[in-house]
Protein backbone atom coordinates (compact mmCIF):
# COMPACT_ATOMS: atom_id res chain seq x y z
CA UNK A 1 0.00 0.00 0.00
CA UNK A 2 1.31 3.43 -0.90
CA UNK A 3 1.20 6.27 1.61
CA UNK A 4 -1.34 8.77 0.42
CA UNK A 5 1.22 11.49 -0.11
CA UNK A 6 2.76 12.25 -3.48
CA UNK A 7 6.36 10.89 -3.66
CA UNK A 8 7.17 12.38 -0.28
CA UNK A 9 10.52 11.65 1.32
CA UNK A 10 10.35 10.98 5.03
CA UNK A 11 13.99 11.86 5.76
CA UNK A 12 15.40 15.19 4.66
CA UNK A 13 18.51 17.30 5.13
CA UNK A 14 16.56 20.48 4.33
CA UNK A 15 14.81 22.72 6.88
CA UNK A 16 11.22 21.61 7.45
CA UNK A 17 8.59 24.04 6.22
CA UNK A 18 5.64 22.72 8.17
CA UNK A 19 3.29 25.54 7.24
CA UNK A 20 3.48 24.46 3.59
CA UNK A 21 3.01 20.82 4.57
CA UNK A 22 0.04 21.80 6.72
CA UNK A 23 -1.58 23.72 3.88
CA UNK A 24 -1.25 20.61 1.68
CA UNK A 25 -3.24 18.64 4.21
CA UNK A 26 -6.44 20.60 3.93
CA UNK A 27 -9.15 18.68 2.16
CA UNK A 28 -12.92 18.70 2.16
CA UNK A 29 -13.13 15.33 3.97
CA UNK A 30 -10.95 16.35 6.90
CA UNK A 31 -12.58 18.17 9.77
CA UNK A 32 -9.39 17.79 11.83
CA UNK A 33 -5.74 18.28 10.94
CA UNK A 34 -3.25 17.76 13.78
CA UNK A 35 0.34 18.91 13.43
CA UNK A 36 3.09 17.90 15.85
CA UNK A 37 6.48 19.55 15.56
CA UNK A 38 9.39 18.10 17.54
CA UNK A 39 11.64 21.08 18.25
CA UNK A 40 15.15 21.40 19.61
CA UNK A 41 15.22 22.54 23.24
CA UNK A 42 17.92 24.89 24.48
CA UNK A 43 18.74 22.67 27.45
CA UNK A 44 18.79 18.98 28.28
CA UNK A 45 19.58 17.28 31.59
CA UNK A 46 20.81 20.56 33.02
CA UNK A 47 23.18 21.33 30.16
CA UNK A 48 22.87 24.15 27.67
CA UNK A 49 22.37 22.78 24.14
CA UNK A 50 24.13 24.43 21.20
CA UNK A 51 22.67 22.27 18.41
CA UNK A 52 21.67 18.74 17.44
CA UNK A 53 23.03 16.72 14.57
CA UNK A 54 20.81 13.89 13.33
CA UNK A 55 21.92 10.78 11.50
CA UNK A 56 19.78 8.01 10.00
CA UNK A 57 20.13 4.71 8.27
CA UNK A 58 18.14 6.30 5.49
CA UNK A 59 16.76 3.39 3.40
CA UNK A 60 15.56 1.57 6.50
CA UNK A 61 14.20 4.74 8.12
CA UNK A 62 12.26 5.60 4.94
CA UNK A 63 10.68 2.16 4.68
CA UNK A 64 9.86 1.96 8.40
CA UNK A 65 8.21 5.39 8.46
CA UNK A 66 6.17 4.48 5.36
CA UNK A 67 5.04 1.31 7.08
CA UNK A 68 4.12 3.12 10.34
CA UNK A 69 2.16 5.75 8.40
CA UNK A 70 0.28 3.09 6.46
CA UNK A 71 -0.61 1.26 9.66
CA UNK A 72 -1.91 4.49 11.19
CA UNK A 73 -3.89 5.38 8.08
CA UNK A 74 -5.58 1.97 8.18
CA UNK A 75 -6.10 1.83 11.94
CA UNK A 76 -7.68 5.28 12.30
CA UNK A 77 -9.17 5.64 8.79
CA UNK A 78 -7.10 8.76 8.23
CA UNK A 79 -7.46 10.76 5.06
CA UNK A 80 -3.75 11.62 5.10
CA UNK A 81 -0.68 11.17 7.28
CA UNK A 82 2.90 12.31 6.95
CA UNK A 83 6.04 12.25 9.03
CA UNK A 84 9.24 13.97 7.93
CA UNK A 85 12.40 13.79 10.02
CA UNK A 86 15.50 15.92 9.67
CA UNK A 87 19.04 14.70 9.35
CA UNK A 88 22.05 17.02 9.63
CA UNK A 89 22.30 20.04 11.90
CA UNK A 90 19.21 21.44 13.62
CA UNK A 91 19.65 24.55 15.76
CA UNK A 92 17.79 25.32 18.98
CA UNK A 93 14.10 26.06 18.24
CA UNK A 94 14.50 24.34 14.88
CA UNK A 95 12.07 21.64 13.78
CA UNK A 96 13.57 18.14 13.95
CA UNK A 97 10.47 16.16 13.03
CA UNK A 98 6.96 16.94 11.91
CA UNK A 99 3.92 14.63 11.98
CA UNK A 100 0.62 15.68 10.41
CA UNK A 101 -2.56 13.62 10.50
CA UNK A 102 -5.87 14.46 8.88
CA UNK A 103 -9.20 12.78 9.54
CA UNK A 104 -12.92 13.46 9.54
CA UNK A 105 -12.98 14.05 13.32
CA UNK A 106 -10.35 15.15 15.84
CA UNK A 107 -10.07 12.06 18.06
CA UNK A 108 -8.61 9.95 15.27
CA UNK A 109 -6.19 12.65 14.13
CA UNK A 110 -4.88 13.21 17.69
CA UNK A 111 -4.51 9.52 18.55
CA UNK A 112 -2.90 8.60 15.26
CA UNK A 113 -0.47 11.51 15.50
CA UNK A 114 0.77 10.36 18.92
CA UNK A 115 1.01 6.76 17.72
CA UNK A 116 3.16 7.80 14.77
CA UNK A 117 5.62 10.00 16.69
CA UNK A 118 5.97 7.47 19.51
CA UNK A 119 6.84 4.67 17.11
CA UNK A 120 9.16 6.83 15.02
CA UNK A 121 11.09 7.95 18.10
CA UNK A 122 11.51 4.47 19.51
CA UNK A 123 11.82 2.18 16.53
CA UNK A 124 13.17 3.98 13.49
CA UNK A 125 16.97 4.08 13.02
CA UNK A 126 17.47 7.81 13.52
CA UNK A 127 19.93 9.18 16.07
CA UNK A 128 20.54 12.56 17.63
CA UNK A 129 23.97 13.81 18.57
CA UNK A 130 23.63 16.59 21.13
CA UNK A 131 26.28 19.29 21.14
CA UNK A 132 26.40 21.37 24.31
CA UNK A 133 27.63 24.92 24.70
CA UNK A 134 30.43 23.70 27.01
CA UNK A 135 32.00 21.92 24.03
CA UNK A 136 30.96 18.38 25.04
CA UNK A 137 28.66 16.14 23.01
CA UNK A 138 26.59 13.04 23.57
CA UNK A 139 24.57 10.56 21.48
CA UNK A 140 20.96 10.40 22.65
CA UNK A 141 18.87 7.36 23.52
CA UNK A 142 15.08 7.41 23.72
CA UNK A 143 14.68 5.38 26.86
CA UNK A 144 13.05 7.97 29.10
CA UNK A 145 9.62 8.44 27.55
CA UNK A 146 8.06 9.44 30.82
CA UNK A 147 10.12 12.65 30.67
CA UNK A 148 8.82 13.61 27.24
Amino acid sequence: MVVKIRDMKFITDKPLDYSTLFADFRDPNSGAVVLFSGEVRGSNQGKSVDRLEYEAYIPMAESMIASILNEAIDKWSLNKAICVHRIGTVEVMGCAVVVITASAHRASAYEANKYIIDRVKHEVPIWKHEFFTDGTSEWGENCECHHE
Partner: protein
Amino acid sequence: MNKEVEITVGCFAGLRKYFGATEQIKCPLPATCGEILEKMLAKNPEAEIMLGKCRIAIGEQFVPQDFALTENVVVFLIPPSSGG
Protein backbone atom coordinates in the same frame (compact mmCIF):
# COMPACT_ATOMS: atom_id res chain seq x y z
CA MET B 1 34.90 -27.78 5.96
CA ASN B 2 34.25 -24.25 7.15
CA LYS B 3 34.76 -21.42 4.71
CA GLU B 4 36.18 -18.17 6.09
CA VAL B 5 34.64 -15.00 4.65
CA GLU B 6 34.92 -11.29 5.34
CA ILE B 7 31.69 -9.74 6.56
CA THR B 8 31.17 -5.99 6.25
CA VAL B 9 29.65 -4.47 9.37
CA GLY B 10 28.01 -1.03 9.19
CA CYS B 11 28.12 1.08 12.35
CA PHE B 12 26.05 4.15 13.19
CA ALA B 13 25.85 6.93 15.75
CA GLY B 14 27.27 6.13 19.20
CA LEU B 15 28.93 2.96 17.91
CA ARG B 16 31.35 5.09 15.93
CA LYS B 17 33.01 6.15 19.18
CA TYR B 18 34.42 2.62 19.08
CA PHE B 19 34.46 1.57 15.43
CA GLY B 20 34.71 3.01 11.93
CA ALA B 21 31.63 3.55 9.77
CA THR B 22 32.33 0.10 8.36
CA GLU B 23 34.42 -2.73 9.73
CA GLN B 24 35.56 -5.93 8.03
CA ILE B 25 35.17 -9.00 10.22
CA LYS B 26 36.65 -12.37 9.29
CA CYS B 27 34.23 -15.13 10.08
CA PRO B 28 34.04 -18.83 9.29
CA LEU B 29 30.69 -19.94 7.83
CA PRO B 30 28.30 -21.23 8.94
CA ALA B 31 27.84 -18.48 11.55
CA THR B 32 25.11 -16.33 13.00
CA CYS B 33 24.72 -12.57 13.36
CA GLY B 34 25.27 -12.98 17.09
CA GLU B 35 28.79 -14.23 16.38
CA ILE B 36 29.50 -10.95 14.58
CA LEU B 37 28.61 -9.11 17.78
CA GLU B 38 31.09 -11.30 19.67
CA LYS B 39 33.82 -10.59 17.14
CA MET B 40 33.12 -6.85 17.29
CA LEU B 41 33.37 -7.03 21.07
CA ALA B 42 36.71 -8.81 20.79
CA LYS B 43 37.87 -6.07 18.42
CA ASN B 44 37.02 -3.34 20.94
CA PRO B 45 35.99 -4.53 24.43
CA GLU B 46 35.20 -0.92 25.43
CA ALA B 47 32.13 -1.11 23.19
CA GLU B 48 30.53 -3.83 25.35
CA ILE B 49 27.64 -1.78 26.77
CA MET B 50 26.78 -0.18 23.43
CA LEU B 51 27.00 -3.49 21.53
CA GLY B 52 24.64 -5.00 24.09
CA LYS B 53 22.00 -2.43 23.18
CA CYS B 54 22.25 -2.79 19.40
CA ARG B 55 19.73 -4.44 17.13
CA ILE B 56 20.94 -6.14 13.98
CA ALA B 57 19.69 -5.38 10.47
CA ILE B 58 20.41 -6.90 7.10
CA GLY B 59 19.27 -4.74 4.23
CA GLU B 60 16.26 -2.90 5.60
CA GLN B 61 15.05 -5.63 7.94
CA PHE B 62 15.81 -6.36 11.57
CA VAL B 63 16.98 -9.93 12.08
CA PRO B 64 17.42 -12.03 15.24
CA GLN B 65 20.85 -12.90 16.62
CA ASP B 66 20.52 -16.48 15.44
CA PHE B 67 20.00 -15.38 11.84
CA ALA B 68 22.45 -17.23 9.60
CA LEU B 69 25.13 -15.19 7.84
CA THR B 70 25.79 -15.64 4.16
CA GLU B 71 28.70 -14.58 2.01
CA ASN B 72 28.74 -10.94 0.81
CA VAL B 73 26.09 -9.87 3.29
CA VAL B 74 26.39 -6.47 5.01
CA VAL B 75 25.37 -6.52 8.66
CA PHE B 76 24.22 -3.22 10.18
CA LEU B 77 24.41 -2.69 13.92
CA ILE B 78 21.58 -0.39 14.98
CA PRO B 79 22.03 1.47 18.30
CA PRO B 80 18.91 2.48 20.27
CA SER B 81 16.88 5.04 18.32
CA SER B 82 16.97 8.65 19.41
CA GLY B 83 14.97 10.49 16.81
CA GLY B 84 12.46 13.22 17.55
